[in-house]
């Protein structure tokens, strides 16, 4: 693990990052203006939203696919592509689109 604030002498050579997936600490959910809201009744678990999400942040639950809001940027692709119209994009609290 590369220590926050590490000096260059401590760092691995050649800008190597020794662990995979360290981007996971970057919670891109804070970018979101619209939030996908899934209607669990309508979701048929077809996996389309899961397939197409650019963030890979759809999570399979027992009865539907939900969104990992830590990473969802609110692009709206899942809502647009859902064949069952099970996802609605709603404005996040505190956001405006003036």
């Amino acid at each position: 693990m590369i220590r926050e604030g590490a000096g260059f002498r401590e760092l691995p050579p050649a800008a190597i990052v020794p662990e995979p997936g360290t981007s996971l600490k970057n919670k891109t959910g804070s970018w979101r203006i619209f939030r996908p809201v899934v209607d669990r009744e309508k979701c048929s678990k077809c996996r389309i939203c899961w397939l197409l999400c650019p963030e890979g942040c759809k999570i399979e639950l027992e009865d539907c696919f939900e969104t990992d809001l830590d990473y969802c940027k609110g692009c709206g692709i899942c809502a647009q592509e859902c064949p069952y119209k099970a996802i609605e994009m709603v404005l996040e609290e505190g956001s405006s689109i003036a």
Partner: protein
Amino acid sequence: MSIKLSELPAEDYFLPGHRACAGCGAAIAIRLILKVAGPNTIVASATGCIEVISSLYPENAWGVPWIHTAFENAAATASGVEAAYKVLRRKGKISHDKVNFLAIAGDGGTADIGIQALSGMAERGHNVKYICYDNEAYMNTGIQRSSSTPYGAWTTTSPPGKAIPIGKREVKKDVARIMVAHGIPYVATASIGYPLDLMRKVKTALEIEGPAYIHVHTPCPTGWRFESNKTIEVARLAVQTGMWVLYEVKQGRLRITYKLSKLKPVEEYLRTQGRFSHLTDDDIAKIQEDVRKRFEEFVEGYRQLGVSVEA
């Protein structure tokens, strides 16, 4: 061979926390490609959006070993990795079997500055699968035109104005065709609008020994000027209007993988994007005519390259 949505693994090797714009088509492509390639994969990425958004030091969005390489040499770096692997295997220093070697670059890193490294990789016959994600400009540096930008598109370096009302005057370079002319075992075009077809092509490429080239059309909401939820729709329209043709050339045989009996009008594609908003009806008629002609002559053009055609 086919890919079934219901059978795809949950695991990803291109991970969240990357900083691509919301709705990024290239991010969708790379995630799906890595899902097919799986954990036994080494990637070399040229500078460009995918590299920049996935590797803000000390963060990285990769679940497999990944090397950032310069703008021009993804193919050279991947060639070197593959050659080193072979030597280490021969000397018995590593035991890993069936490692996938991927080179990933944008259209600028492929069609422009990286083409000689790519050509060399193909000619030397490295077992590298080269992926070009085509967002049709230099997006990471601020939407400058590339040789893969289509005719008539606005970019910051092909702005429509009084002197040049059309925007980009030159037509899109056909890199897939150039790669077919290299005679390598597998070349394909793909689109994120047809994700299972894209994934099947990646799987096919990985199963064939030797170099492969896959050119993936990846719409970019930021650079093409459309809403972030329309990425897949724009990708599909490119295919359905004939602006982007899906095919593969496997061991010298051409197969159109998405057959169209009738093309949708190109206007339906062009009007989805702000980068084409300056085009007049006459401009669109010219693009329509070019697409129709290219479509009609497509198969014959490949025959002339010595490729046989599957029905």
